[in-house]
C-alpha cells in the first residue's frame, strides 16, 4: 500500500524536469538537457509501472488509493484538496501517458536534434506530461480541470513551437481559443456539480449521484452535456474539431504525443470517469453516441483526399476519437478505454513513422512527392505497415479487437437507433482502411516522385534513436489486442480490471450476443476493411492512373470529390453564415485594423459579433468630459430608478 501513497512522484518528476530545463536549460549542454528530460520521464514511467503492478496485486475491490498532498482552497463551505488518486482507470491512462510519453521523448532526441530551442522543447514536453498526469490522477474535478487547462496550454505552446512561422502561431492560437470554448462548458459543469453535491471530490459525487439525481433529470442532463462540451473541445469532436488538423503545424513528435495518443483522449477519460453521471442521463448518452458516430464517419471521409501526410493522420485521429465517444455513448466504456489504449499505440506509431518519413525527406510532407520508400526506409516501412493494418482493423492486430468491440456494442446496444450507429461506424471503418492504405501506397510503394534533387539525394532511414520507439510501438500495436482476449468467462482482462470503476447503476446492460452473430459481425467488419484496402490498392498501387482519371471525371463524382477535397466547405460555410454578413457591413473597420483570421469558422463569427458590439459601445467613449459626465448623471438616475423599481414602491 505504501507504494501507492507515493504515486505523486509520477507527475512530480516531469514537473521537476520541466522546471530544470525551462529555467536553466539554456545554460546546460544538449546532453544534460536530454538527460534531465529523459531521466525525469523515464523514472516517472518506471514508477508508474511499479505502482501499476502494486495496484494489480491488490484485491479488485480495494484497487483505489487516494492521497491528499495539501489543502488547496479551504473554507467551511468549500474545500478543494490537491489530492492524487489511483484506480484502474487512471492507472491505465497513467501507463499510456508515461509509457508512450517516454518513447516519444526518446524519439524526440533524434527528431529535434537539429532544432533551435532544444531545451525549450523538452521543458514544454515535460510540462505536458505533468499536466496530463495531473489530469488523469486527480481526485477531484478541480485537479482534473487544472490538468485539463495545463495540457491545453502546453499544446498551444508546442503547436506554436516554430514561432517564426506565422501559420504555426495562428494554429496555436486557434487551438487555444477553441479549447477555451470547450473549457467554458467544463468549468460551468464543475460549478453545477458543486452546487448540486456540495463537493467536487469524485468520492463524494459519483457514489451518490444516482440517489441525489433522478434518472434523465434536468440537472444531470445539463451537467453531462456541459461536460461533453468540454470533451468535444479537447477531443476535437464536431463542432469543435477544426483546431486539430491545424495543430499539425507543431513538431511531429508533439502531434504523436499530444494530438494523437494522450491529450485528445482526455475527453474520453473525462466521460469515462464521469460514467456514474452519464449513465443516469440517457439523453446525454444519445448525444454523445451520435456526435461520436457522426464525427467518426465525417472525419474519415475528410481524410480521403488530403495530400499532407500529417493532415490525413489528424483527420483519422478525429475519426478514431469519434469511435471512442460512440462507445462511451453506448455505455461500453471498457470498449472506449480499450480503443484509447490500442489507438495510442498504433496512432503514435503512425505519427512517429510519418515523422521519420518527413525527417528522411528533408521536411517534405506532401504525399505526391513521396513514394517508393519501402526499400529506402525499411524499418519505418514495416512498422508503418503494422500500424496501418492495426488501424484498418485487420485481425491479429490490436485495432481489430477494440474496434470490433465497439461495433459489437453498437449492433447489440439497447439505445434507440443503435443499428444506425453500427452502420455509420462500419462505413467509417471501410473508409478508414481505404484512406490509410491510400496513404501507405502513396508513401511507400512505387517510385520516389520528388523532383527536388536535394530531397532525392538525402533520403535516409532514421537513426536508431528514432526507429527503436517505432519498433516498440509497432510491437504493442500487434500485442495490444491481447488485453481483449476473453480469458475469464464472459469478460476479457481489461473488462474485469476496469469493472470496479464503472458504475453498474443505471448502466446499460451489456448484452451477451450469440456467438454465431458475433462471428458474422467480425467477418463483416474485416470484410469492409479488406474491401477498403483492395480499392486503395487498385487506385494507388495496381493502377495509379485511375485515381487521376476519377478526379477528372465530370458529373456527380466530380462534385463529391471536390466537396471532400475542400473539407465539406465547413470553413466556407461558417464563413458565409457568420463572417460574411458582418464583414460586408463593416469591411473597412473590421478587417483593416485587425487581422481577423485568428480562428476561422464559428469562433470567427462569435468574435466578430463582439468586435462589432465593441465598435458600437466604443462610440460612447468620445473623449469629451461633458459626455462622460452626462453618462455618469444618467447612471445616477438609472441606479436610483432601478432601486425604486426593484423595491416596487
Amino acid at each position, binding site marked *: 500500500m505504501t507504494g501507492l501513497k507515493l504515486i505523486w512522484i509520477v507527475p512530480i518528476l516531469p514537473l521537476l524536469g520541466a522546471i530544470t530545463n525551462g529555467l536553466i536549460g539554456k545554460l546546460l549542454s544538449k546532453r544534460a538537457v536530454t538527460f534531465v528530460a529523459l531521466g525525469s520521464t523515464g523514472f516517472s514511467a518506471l514508477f508508474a509501472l511499479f505502482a501499476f503492478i502494486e495496484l494489480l496485486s491488490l484485491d479488485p475491490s480495494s484497487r483505489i488509493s487516494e492521497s491528499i498532498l*495539501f*489543502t*488547496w*482552497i*479551504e*473554507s467551511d*463551505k*468549500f474545500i478543494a484538496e490537491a489530492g492524487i488518486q489511483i484506480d484502474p482507470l487512471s492507472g491505465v491512462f497513467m501507463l499510456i501517458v508515461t509509457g508512450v510519453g517516454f518513447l516519444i521523448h526518446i524519439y524526440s532526441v533524434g527528431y529535434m536534434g537539429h532544432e533551435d530551442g532544444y531545451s525549450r522543447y523538452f521543458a514544454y514536453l515535460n510540462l505536458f506530461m505533468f499536466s496530463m498526469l495531473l489530469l488523469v490522477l486527480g481526485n477531484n474535478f*478541480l485537479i482534473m*480541470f*487544472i490538468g485539463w*487547462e*495545463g495540457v491545453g*496550454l502546453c499544446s498551444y505552446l508546442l503547436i*506554436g513551437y516554430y*514561432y*517564426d512561422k*506565422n501559420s504555426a*502561431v495562428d494554429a496555436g*492560437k486557434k487551438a*487555444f*481559443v477553441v479549447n*477555451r*470554448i470547450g*473549457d*467554458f462548458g467544463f*468549468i*460551468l459543469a464543475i*460549478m453545477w456539480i*458543486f*452546487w448540486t453535491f456540495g463537493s467536487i471530490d469524485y468520492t463524494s459525487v459519483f457514489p451518490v449521484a444516482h440517489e441525489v439525481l433522478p434518472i434523465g433529470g434536468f440537472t444531470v442532463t445539463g451537467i453531462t452535456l456541459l461536460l461533453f462540451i468540454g470533451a468535444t473541445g479537447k477531443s476535437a469532436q464536431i463542432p469543435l474539431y477544426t483546431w486539430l488538423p491545424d495543430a499539425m503545424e507543431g513538431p511531429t513528435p508533439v502531434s504523436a504525443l499530444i494530438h494523437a495518443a494522450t491529450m485528445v483522449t482526455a475527453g474520453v477519460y473525462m466521460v469515462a470517469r464521469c460514467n456514474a453521471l452519464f449513465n443516469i442521463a440517457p439523453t446525454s448518452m444519445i448525444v454523445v453516441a451520435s456526435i461520436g458516430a457522426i464525427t467518426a464517419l465525417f472525419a474519415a471521409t475528410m481524410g480521403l483526399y488530403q495530400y499532407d501526410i500529417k493532415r490525413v493522420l489528424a483527420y483519422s485521429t478525429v475519426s478514431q476519437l469519434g469511435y471512442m465517444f460512440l462507445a462511451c455513448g453506448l455505455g461500453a466504456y471498457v470498449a472506449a478505454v480499450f480503443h484509447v489504449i490500442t489507438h495510442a499505440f498504433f496512432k503514435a506509431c503512425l505519427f512517429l513513422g510519418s515523422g521519420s518519413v518527413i525527417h528522411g525527406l528533408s521536411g517534405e510532407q506532401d504525399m505526391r512527392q513521396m513514394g517508393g520508400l519501402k526499400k529506402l526506409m525499411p524499418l519505418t516501412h514495416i512498422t508503418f505497415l503494422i500500424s496501418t493494418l492495426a488501424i484498418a482493423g485487420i485481425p491479429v492486430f490490436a485495432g481489430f479487437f477494440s474496434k470490433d468491440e465497439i461495433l459489437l456494442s453498437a449492433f447489440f446496444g439497447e439505445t434507440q437507433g443503435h443499428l444506425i450507429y453500427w452502420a455509420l461506424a462500419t462505413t467509417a471503418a471501410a473508409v478508414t482502411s481505404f484512406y490509410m492504405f491510400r496513404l501507405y501506397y502513396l508513401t511507400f510503394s512505387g517510385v520516389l516522385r520528388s523532383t527536388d534533387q536535394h530531397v532525392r539525394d538525402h533520403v535516409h532511414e532514421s537513426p536508431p534513436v528514432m526507429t527503436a520507439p517505432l519498433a516498440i510501438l509497432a510491437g504493442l500495436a500487434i500485442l495490444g489486442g491481447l488485453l481483449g482476449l476473453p480469458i475469464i468467462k464472459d469478460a476479457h482482462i481489461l473488462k474485469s480490471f476496469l469493472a470496479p470503476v464503472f458504475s453498474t447503476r443505471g448502466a446499460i446492460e451489456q448484452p451477451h450476443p450469440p456467438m454465431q452473430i458475433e462471428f458474422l459481425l467480425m467477418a463483416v467488419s474485416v470484410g469492409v476493411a479488406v474491401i477498403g484496402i483492395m480499392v486503395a490498392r487498385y487506385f494507388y498501387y495496381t493502377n495509379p492512373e485511375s485515381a487521376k482519371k476519377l478526379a477528372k471525371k465530370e458529373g456527380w463524382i466530380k462534385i463529391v470529390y471536390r466537396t471532400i477535397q475542400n473539407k465539406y466547405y465547413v470553413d466556407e460555410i461558417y464563413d458565409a453564415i457568420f463572417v460574411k454578413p458582418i464583414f460586408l457591413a463593416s469591411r473597412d473597420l473590421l478587417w483593416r*485594423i*485587425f487581422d481577423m483570421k*485568428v480562428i476561422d469558422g464559428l469562433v470567427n463569427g462569435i*468574435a466578430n459579433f*463582439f*468586435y462589432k*458590439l*465593441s*465598435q458600437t*459601445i*466604443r462610440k*460612447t*467613449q468620445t*473623449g469629451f*468630459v461633458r*459626455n*462622460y*459626465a452626462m*453618462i*455618469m448623471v444618467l*447612471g*445616477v438616475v*438609472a*441606479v*436610483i430608478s*432601478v*432601486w425604486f423599481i*426593484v*423595491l416596487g414602491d
Partner: protein
Amino acid sequence: MKQLVIPDVSLGAVGPEIVLVVTAILLLLLEVFTARKEKGYLAYTALGGVLLASAMTANMNGYTEMNFSGMYVVDNFASFFKLVCLLGTGMTILVSVTYTINEGISNGEYYALLLFATSGMFFMISGSDMVTIFMGLEVMSISLYALAGYTRNREKSNEAALKYFVLGALASAFLLYGIALIYGATGSTKLAIIGDSLRTGIANYHLIIIGAALLVVGFGFKISAVPFHMWAPDVYQGAPAPVTAFMSSGPKAATFAAFLRVFNEALPSMQADWWQIFWILSVMTMTVGNIMALRQTDVKRMLAYSSIAHAGYILMGFTTGDWFGVSAILFYMLVYTFMNIGVFAVVTIVARKNEEKTTFEDYTGLGYKHPIIGVTLVVLLFSLIGIPPTAGFVGKFYIFMSALQQGYVWLVIIAVVNSVISVFYYLRLTIVMYMTEETTEALPSLSLSPSLVTALIISIYGSLWLGVMPSSYITFAQAASLIP
C-alpha cells in the same frame, strides 16, 4: 470654564498612518535639501516608510479596536486591505525608480504623493464614519490627480489629470450628497448608528435609498464600475505607467474596502435590495470592460478596460452579502495587485522614454528578443485570464463560487462567458510578442534595473504561489472577512 471632553486617542492604532505621513513630509524636506543628482535615495526612503508601515500593520493582526469616538476602526479586515495597499505602493515605488530617472522626474514629491495617497487609502479602509471615509477618499483622490498629471510635458498626461479631476470632483459631490441624505434620514454619519436606526425602522426609507444609490455612484466611480467608468481608459492611458499601475491596485482596494464596510455595516438590512443593484453593475462592468478591450490598439488602454472587467468580477463578491463573498473579494484584490502591477511593470519597461511604445505593434517580437520579460508577461497575462495554476484562476474560481453559493447561477454563467471573451485580447498580446515581423527601426535596448526585476519577481511569485498554495492566504482572507 467647562472642561472639554477630549476623545479617546490611540496613537498605536494609527501608527502606520503616522509613519506614512511623516515619511511623506520628510521626503518633501529631503527633496529641497538634496542636490539634483543625489536624489536616487529618495525612492528607498519612501520604500523604507512603506516597509515600516507594513510591519506595523502586520503586527495588528487579530487586533480589533474602535477609536477616535468611533470614527476609526482597526480590525483584520482593515489590516488585510492595508497590506494590499502597501503591497501596491511598495511595488509601484520599485517600478518607478528607473522610470522617474528616465523621465527626469525623480523627485521627492512623486514619492510623497504616493505615500499621501496611501495614507488616504488607510483612512478610507479604517473609517467607520462616513466623514472619515470621505476625507480619506479626498486625500487619496487629490494625490492621484496630481500624480496622473505628473509628467507635465506630455499632453496626454495633462489631459488625464484634468479629466480625472473634473469627473472625480463630480463623483465626490455625488458621494457627499449621498452621505448628507443618509445623515438626514438617520441623524448620524457613523456606520454602526446608521445600521441600528435602519434595523429599528425609524429612518426615512426613501431618503436612505437615494442616499445609498448616490454612494454607489461615488464609490462606483473610483472602482470604475460601468457606467461610471468613462474616465478610466483616458486616464489610464495618459497617466505615467507606474502611476497607472498604482491607480489600478491600491485605490481600487481601498474603495472596495470602504464600499464593503458601508454597505455591510450601515446598510446590511437592505441587502435584499442592493444585491440586485450590484448584480446589474457587476454584469455591465465585466461585459463592457471585456468587450471594449477587444478593439484596443494601445496596451495601456487595453489594460484599463481589463481593469474595468476585473472590477466587474470583484463586484460579484458584493452581491452575496456574506463572509464568503467578502473573503473572495479580499483574496481577489491581493491577487490582482500582484499580477496587475507586474503587467504594468513590463509596460513601463517596454514604453521607454516619453512612453512612446505602448501600442500592440511595439510588442512585436518581444518574446524572443527578451525571453525573460516575454515569459514574465505571458505568465502574468495567463494569470489575468485565469488559467490554472496561476493565482488568477484561484481568485476567479473563489469569487465565482461565492456567487454560486448564493444561487446566482446566471451571474456566474455570464462571468464565465466573459472570462472566455477576455482570452481574445490577452492572447492577442502574447501572440504579437511571438510574431516575427521584422521591425525596421532599431529600438534602444530595454533597461532592466534591479528594482524593476525585484518588482517582477514579486509579482511572478504572487501570481504563481497564490495559485499553487493559496490556502494560507485564503485563511487570512476569511479571518478578515468583516462579516462573521
